[in-house]
């Protein structure tokens, strides 16, 4: 069976509309990032974080006042997964793990009847946080560059540029959406932590994968249809690979969606980023990467001095000009 018979969709014809939509989404995303920002995970900011399970639904207010009393006034307290489990986080730093010990002592004192159970505890020193942040940024930037260079090398320079812009687009859209949706629903509490960085790199990888498959087909078709215009050629290649694009992206989409829905709290942010990323990655391969290649090539063609035939100006007219 097949979902797609031979298609002949004019992808590139509407590229200006899609540019506009993409830019709008990114601008909105940047606005959300500027206004709302996003949460860094504990591994990037440093501090102490604890996931505590109570026997009864937890009383966030009581925990907050407990933390205030213990000398951690700006602690973050939120539900984690279910009503009985709470995530407590403070950026306070002290030698060794004294912060965590103090919180645990306070918890046992305040909730002595409930015997709270610490499921997970994490302490990140201030230097480590800064270091991990730097490494994460380095990882994302260097993978963007490394892959674009590879594409520029395997194809043509402009293909590398197109791929780079597309990847950047995917990262920005996903980041913007994460910022926007963070905290809006109980299922969308996101944090930019190391796992999220892994997700971003995966998005970059998958989007690149998609882009390369399309570029590969363009390259192949260029050899076959030498006289075909680039726009027609790209459209033809996109239509030819459309079935594969949809099947693959659909499969990955379903897989990441399952991970998002059923993979547990730990994997949720990761899976969400992937679900968004696979969608925008597929889209950007067509409407960003390929479109940029087309526009750039067209512009370059436009700049080339072409021989023109005009009527020979008469001697008088030339004189008049003087």
């Amino acid at each position, binding site marked *: *069976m*097949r979902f797609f018979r031979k298609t002949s969709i004019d992808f590139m014809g509407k590229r200006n509309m899609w540019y506009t939509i993409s830019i709008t989404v990114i601008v909105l995303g940047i606005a959300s990032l500027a206004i709302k920002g996003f949460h860094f995970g504990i591994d990037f900011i440093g501090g102490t974080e604890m*996931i505590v399970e109570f026997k009864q639904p937890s009383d966030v207010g009581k925990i907050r006042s407990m933390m205030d009393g213990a000398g951690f006034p700006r602690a973050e307290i939120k539900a984690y997964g279910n009503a009985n489990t709470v995530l407590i986080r403070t950026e306070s730093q002290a*030698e*060794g*793990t004294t912060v965590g*010990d103090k919180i645990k002592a306070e918890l046992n004192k305040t909730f002595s009847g409930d015997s709270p*159970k*610490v*499921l*997970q*505890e*994490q*302490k*990140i*020193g201030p*230097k*480590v946080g*800064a270091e*991990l942040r730097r*490494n994460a940024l380095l*990882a994302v930037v260097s*993978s963007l560059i*490394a*892959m674009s260079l*590879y*594409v520029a090398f395997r194809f043509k320079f402009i293909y590398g540029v197109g791929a780079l812009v597309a990847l950047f687009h995917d990262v920005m859209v996903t980041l913007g959406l994460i910022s926007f949706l963070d905290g809006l629903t109980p299922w969308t509490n996101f944090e930019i932590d*190391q*796992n999220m*960085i*892994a997700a971003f*790199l995966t998005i*970059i*990888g*998958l989007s*690149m*994968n998609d882009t*390369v*498959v399309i*570029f*590969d087909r363009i390259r*192949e078709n260029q050899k076959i249809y030498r006289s075909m215009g680039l726009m027609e050629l790209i459209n033809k290649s996109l239509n030819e690979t459309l*079935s*594969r694009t949809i*099947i*693959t992206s659909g*499969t*990955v989409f*379903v*897989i990441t969606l*399952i*991970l998002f*829905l*059923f*993979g*547990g709290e*730990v*994997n949720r942010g*990761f*899976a969400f980023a992937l679900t968004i990323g696979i969608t925008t990655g597929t889209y950007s391969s067509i409407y960003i990467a390929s479109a940029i290649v087309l526009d750039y090539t067209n512009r370059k063609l436009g700049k080339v001095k072409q021989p023109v035939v005009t009527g020979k100006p008469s001697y008088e007219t030339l004189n008049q000009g003087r």
Partner: protein
Amino acid sequence: MKKNRGKSVFIVACVLISLYFLYPTYKDYKFGKELRNLNSADSLKFVDEHGSDLRDARTKRIKLGLDLQGGMRVVLEVNTLKLLEDLAKNKDDLFNSIMNEVRAEMKAAGDQDVIDILQQKFQARQVRLSRYYGSIRDSDNDIVSKLRDESTNAVDRAKEIVRNRVDQYGVSEPSIQKQGARRIIVELPGVSKEEEVRKLLQGTALLEFKLLIDPEIALKVYESVDKVLAGKPLADSLTADSSKSLASKSSTAKTDTAKSAADSALANISDDKTKALEQAKKDHPFFAIANPFQQEGQAWSGQLYSAEEDRARVMRILDQPDIKRLLPSDMSFTWSAKSSFTAEGKPFFALYAVKKNPELTGGVIVNARATIDPQFNTPIVEMEMNGEGAHDWARITGANIKKRIAIIMDNACFSAPVVQNKITGGRSQISGMDNVEEAKLLEIVLKAGALPAPVEIIQQATVGPSLGEDSINKGIWSATLALALTVVFMIFYYRSGGMMADIALFLNILFVLGVLAAFQGTLTLPGIAGLILTVAIAVDANVLIFERIREESVTGKSLMAAIDAGYSRAFTAIFDANLTAFITGVILYQFGSGPVQGFALTLMIGIVASVFSAVVVSRVIIETMLERGKHVSFG
């Protein structure tokens, strides 16, 4: 078939190798399941019976990361500033004020090297470093390079101290690794008692020199322990002579016991032998688990040997009130830090009986150095003590010639050399090490007593076992669901071609896990996510090929020709696409840490495996089927 014979053989070999590497994981899982069903008494017996198998399976299985298993991960960093403070001599107000400046500068500058800052501050004040470090003739640059060495050595020292303590603490499968120049990563699966662990990891090491109790006295004590345990009355003829003959008797009996134990572990046990073994165990309950291993005609060296798992039991026995009464009041016990030998697949540790009070503590050691004895070309360790220590050392060695002195760090014995002569002047030489590594370890241990290795916890993560279990269940469940849907979809969409792809998909997962097991990799939660992505990548490769085959067959090619064209045309796309994804994996592995590296590792293995399984495996299956005249369709 002929065309693909080589490939088929290769594929089958890959499958078999993967299965071979995965077998311990399966066995470990099975053992775990059986153990959970048994009650405590039966499970002890089960462990006894399958001891070496269990251990074998455990070490060779795919390890679960701390996020899945629960446990603690601690990153320690050597505090260079503190180290510099500790190393300085003749500290005065000037020194303290410079140090305060360095501290302030460090807070402001962050990443700058502490030793560089120190040097700058000293230069700014025109104070020579030799005022506090090294000797007066050393130039500043000499001292700086020495301090740098010290700070590197401090990491090794701290690592050895931590390893020793963790070994004493008895965590199964701890991992202690150096990261970069100043950090140590400690991973303790299944441990959640943070306070205990923290105490374990921090604090200065205690190095002591303790005299060994005379072997003859020790043996007498051990024999009476053995007798009391066996329920026999203490023989009143505990004279030296009779006990000596007794000793040799019992210990020869012991060697026999050990032998027969080995025999019984090996193969078919005849009834007689079991009976003899049981009888020996009954007669000598103590020596059965703490074996003197005395050789006929040789003086007993003075230590007992116990298998790793028996150590706790031996200590419990020696702590029993009725046994304690038999021990001289100044007698205490310490285990060897490393196993002495391995028998029946179990590591054996030596138990030393030592005087309770140390003769000397490590503070007197000025320096230690592992080197090669030029005369005999064997590894030795040179040890140097300060004036006060040298004075005591001369007295101690002089009074105990031909006796043994145990070198004990944090209650584990690293060496128990025999004193050859009275050592005056504080310079000693320890020989008899098996290899250079052993000498190097002893050097580190000797230094640990004198030189500081201040570490601080800069990162700690504790995952409770229940969260780990929850994660693993959800992770596996969602992975299974995703896999099932993918498999069904492939068959639905590509028919028999999809079926081949599914077979390739399963082999792909098998390969990834096999490689992971072969490299003793660790499966983390992000690792499971990476595995799921691998599935996606493998599917993509097959989709690319099958779509291409469909396209080619539309142009009127025969099925065989279409398959041929499909595979070869799709290859460049698959290659380029996967190579870029592989680049991400490499970068992620480079910059990530802990669990994220697990993800990157599974991703990289997965990419290679999926290209192999899609490009080679599925093709071989399809072509073989076609050659056998079976119908293959791509939907």
